[in-house]
């Protein structure tokens, strides 16, 4: 049988709360540390224990990260989804299942291997059979796929860090699994293998929530006000976890305050209070939280207070699918709150950028005196992505236009809190406690000195300045990343976690219709002129995104030069899952057919 090396997909069907996530991460890390390009997506339910969970492990020498078209190896552990899991296997799938579930399996068209996993696990520890049975399938796979036992040992040790008895027990389970295959299965009949590749020692796996949290620390965050919500809680929890190590003085006193707020309105209120007082303050939430924060966001816009809000997007609307991913909040973030408003949105597409935008968001917020959104999603935030390492900020903090002394204040002719003395739409500010130009900040109309005003011309001028301020930022917010083909026929615009699927989409298009397409990954709103130039340079441009309504596409239509609009097409799709290349390549092919390209 021809071997299929480093190019297949595993799907592991379990229930949450059984410890399977540990087993799955051991698999992921073992393969990863063998230098094999691999990615894992955890599809977990919105409850704590006992409901169906799937883990998709994609192994691909070509570096494909998103779930692919088909599953090659299916592990079936969960009675509740048994039938469906069995049914959904395409012919030829290798099925490993827990025999002790005593559930029927009737797939002659597949390679089916039953293993008494629970019994084997119980043999090791009667009370923890359910948990350990997961480690059995790790052993089965280790043997079949020929995983490096040394790396596997390391991965187990790492996963159960410090718990010697647990490490021992789990390794025993792995061995039992290996032994079972050895004794009962002729692995020559199974094509799938993992082969070690050259290991890049710099690269590691991490999730975006942790990267954002670390980035925020290196941005000098002084206050985190937060309210728990999946999938954003990890940002806060990581941030808190790192304080003892990197944010304390010699005496153990903290340089970052953390408050678990009573709700999201309070969380963002704290951020605004912190920004007003002169520190860098942030919160992390998901869609429902952003909705609740809307009123306060308008205050920050109008009173010009810096602050950072991370939206780790989950599938909306409403409570939606709280444990699934989406890019469904983008248009809301851009114009959150009533009245005429716009806010900058930073959109990382890698772990490095989660870190970088983590600190940069503060520079931008203070520079613009505005709330800045970081836009992540469940896929970026909670799944582990590979990362080349975090780079220390190359520049000192940009604290924006803060006046700290009377001399600085005096140097400004005609100072007023809201007067545009530099002509860039951005005024200067002083801080409470400084005694410099004290004013009463407000969300009501105000003149250039911050005094309450209802005068039509004062209001109108203020609003136009705010617009100018945001428009100016287009050229210096994180610019798009371009990968341009020479032909410049078809261009693809995308953002954020779509990054995961782009290479595969690209290959599919080349393979199937012989097309090479350019790519433009948008990294911020308001849009850079570079995006417009990219569109100008290409004949047909397609915007890929993980939502129903084509939200970035809609923003583009609104903002692009008229003549460019007909070139631009939407390929939006969202079903809660991480984006799969096939969905988008089909949509793209449809567009190309339609426009006759």
């Amino acid at each position: 049988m021809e071997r299929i090396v480093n190019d297949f997909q595993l799907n592991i069907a379990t229930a949450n709360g059984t410890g399977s996530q540990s087993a799955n991460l051991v698999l992921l890390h073992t393969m990863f540390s063998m230098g094999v390009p691999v990615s894992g997506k955890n599809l977990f339910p919105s409850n704590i224990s006992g409901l169906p969970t799937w883990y998709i492990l994609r192994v691909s020498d070509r570096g494909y990260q998103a779930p692919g078209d088909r599953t090659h190896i299916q592990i079936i552990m969960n009675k509740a989804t048994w039938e469906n899991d069995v049914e959904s296997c395409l012919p030829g799938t290798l099925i490993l299942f827990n025999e002790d579930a005593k559930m029927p399996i009737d797939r002659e068209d597949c390679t089916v291997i039953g293993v008494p996993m629970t019994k084997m696990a119980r043999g090791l520890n009667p009370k923890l059979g359910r948990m350990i049975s997961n480690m059995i399938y790790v052993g089965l796979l280790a043997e079949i796929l020929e995983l490096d036992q040394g790396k596997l040992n390391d991965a187990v040790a790492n996963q159960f860090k410090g718990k010697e008895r647990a490490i021992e027990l789990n390794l025993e389970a792995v061995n039992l699994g290996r032994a079972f295959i050895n004794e009962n299965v002729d692995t020559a009949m199974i094509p799938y293998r993992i082969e070690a590749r050259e290991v890049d020692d710099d690269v590691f796996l991490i999730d975006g929530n942790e990267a954002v949290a670390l980035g925020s620390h290196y941005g000098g965050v002084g206050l985190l006000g937060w309210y728990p919500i999946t999938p954003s809680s990890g940002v806060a929890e990581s941030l808190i976890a790192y304080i003892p190590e990197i944010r304390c003085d010699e005496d153990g006193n903290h340089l970052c305050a953390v408050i678990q707020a009573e709700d999201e309105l309070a969380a963002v209120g704290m951020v605004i209070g912190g920004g007003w007082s002169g520190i860098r303050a942030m919160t992390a939430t998901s869609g429902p939280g952003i909705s609740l924060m809307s009123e306060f966001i308008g205050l920050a816009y109008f009173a010009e207070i810096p602050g950072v809000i991370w939206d780790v997007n989950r599938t909306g609307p409403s409570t939606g699918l709280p444990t699934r991913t989406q890019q469904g909040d983008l248009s809301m973030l851009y114009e959150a709150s009533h009245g005429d408003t716009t806010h900058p949105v930073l959109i990382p597409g890698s772990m490095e950028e989660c870190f970088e935008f983590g600190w940069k968001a503060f520079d931008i917020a203070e520079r613009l005196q505005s709330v800045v959104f970081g836009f992540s999603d469940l896929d970026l935030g909670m799944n582990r992505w590979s990362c080349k390492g975090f780079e220390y900020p190359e520049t000192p903090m940009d604290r924006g236009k803060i006046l700290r002394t009377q001399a600085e204040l005096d140097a400004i002719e005609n100072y007023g809190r809201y007067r545009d003395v530099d002509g860039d739409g951005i005024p200067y500010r002083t801080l409470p406690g400084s005694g410099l130009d004290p004013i009463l900040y407000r969300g009501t109309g105000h003149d250039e000195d911050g005094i309450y005003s209802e005068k039509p011309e004062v209001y109108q001028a203020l609003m136009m300045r705010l617009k100018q301020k945001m428009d100016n930022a287009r050229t210096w917010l994180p610019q798009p990343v371009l990968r341009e083909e020479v032909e410049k026929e078809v261009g693809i615009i995308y953002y954020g976690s779509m990054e995961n699927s782009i290479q595969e989409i690209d290959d599919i298009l080349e393979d199937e219709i012989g097309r090479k397409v350019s790519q433009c990954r948008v990294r911020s709103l308001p849009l850079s002129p570079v995006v417009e130039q990219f569109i100008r340079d290409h004949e047909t441009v397609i915007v890929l995104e993980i939502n129903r309504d084509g939200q970035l596409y809609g923003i583009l239509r609104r903002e692009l030069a008229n003549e460019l609009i007909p070139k631009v097409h939407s390929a939006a799709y969202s079903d809660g899952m991480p984006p799969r290349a096939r969905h988008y390549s089909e949509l793209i092919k449809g567009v190309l057919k339609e426009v006759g390209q």
Partner: protein
Amino acid sequence: MTIKLNVIDLPKDDYTAGKSTLCPGCGHDQISTVIINSAWENGLKPEKVAKMSGIGCSSKTPAYFLGKSHGFNTVHGRMPAVTTGAAMGNRDLTFIAVSGDGDSASIGIGQFIHAVRRNLDMVYVLENNGVYGLTKGQYSATAVKGSKKKKGAINQHQPIDLCKLAVNLGCTFVARSFSGSKKQLTSLMKAAMSHKGFALVDVISPCVTFNNNDESLRSYTYVKDNDVELHAYDYIPTYSPIEGVEVPEGEFHDITLFDGSTLRLETIGSDHDPTDAVAALAALHKAELENKHVTGLLYFDPTKSTAIEDQCLVDTPLADVPDDIMRPNAASLEVLNTRFRGND
């Protein structure tokens, strides 16, 4: 003539601010005066004070006191959160916050409760008039049950007593007073300003304009003496504020309000032990049953740690910590990268 200076050598003028735009006679203006006097007498540094408020007539008043202090007139009902954030940013500031009963007891009750629970270091002045002044006279949640406004139905609900709530929540300083009781209010305000932790000063502060009870609730003399009949709906008469209502400890006093209805104030007796929460609650419940308001320092607990203390922050206000200390150094990131790479 020499100008009188306070302990930090500042004249009272350094504590005043813009002219009020409230209705003449509004109790809120009296409270502003008390805040000015108290801050001056306590020798607070104006630049080290931050004035916070929500939205309402009451919440406008930070424009009328302490003009040398920064302030933030935030959004309706959510000032405590902004204050919390600001307090974390600058622990050296004294936060003097003003809110209305609409702002605090309705839309803002959640934030009020949680600021109390955290024992946030702030003076929380509740300018309590039983109505929504700025939106023209709807009942607030502190309105007395059974009161009846000229427009609208009888208030059917039992009032929310924020002092009661605060005592239950373990608020570390709970006082009630009356806007016209300048002496009592000043001494409570000064104590509140010196308090570490959350100090609630609930001030009954009648709304001249909209606390208009139905004629049936007014005294006979009032109706007789007043040509209310002539007034247009959009005419706001000018009154002098009610002043000099100082009730001796343990005694009570009836005040006639602008519309002729009365209000009974009782000053809590010196036998009251302000560290006894149950006694404070009992006094409040009793007063409610007897349709009067009990004033004075109701509850006090100097033992609890404050929100700032709970954070274990560095002593320097975070806003003053240099950037290169706020940002961890490059070496620390290398340690992390190395650890992530599994090479440590």
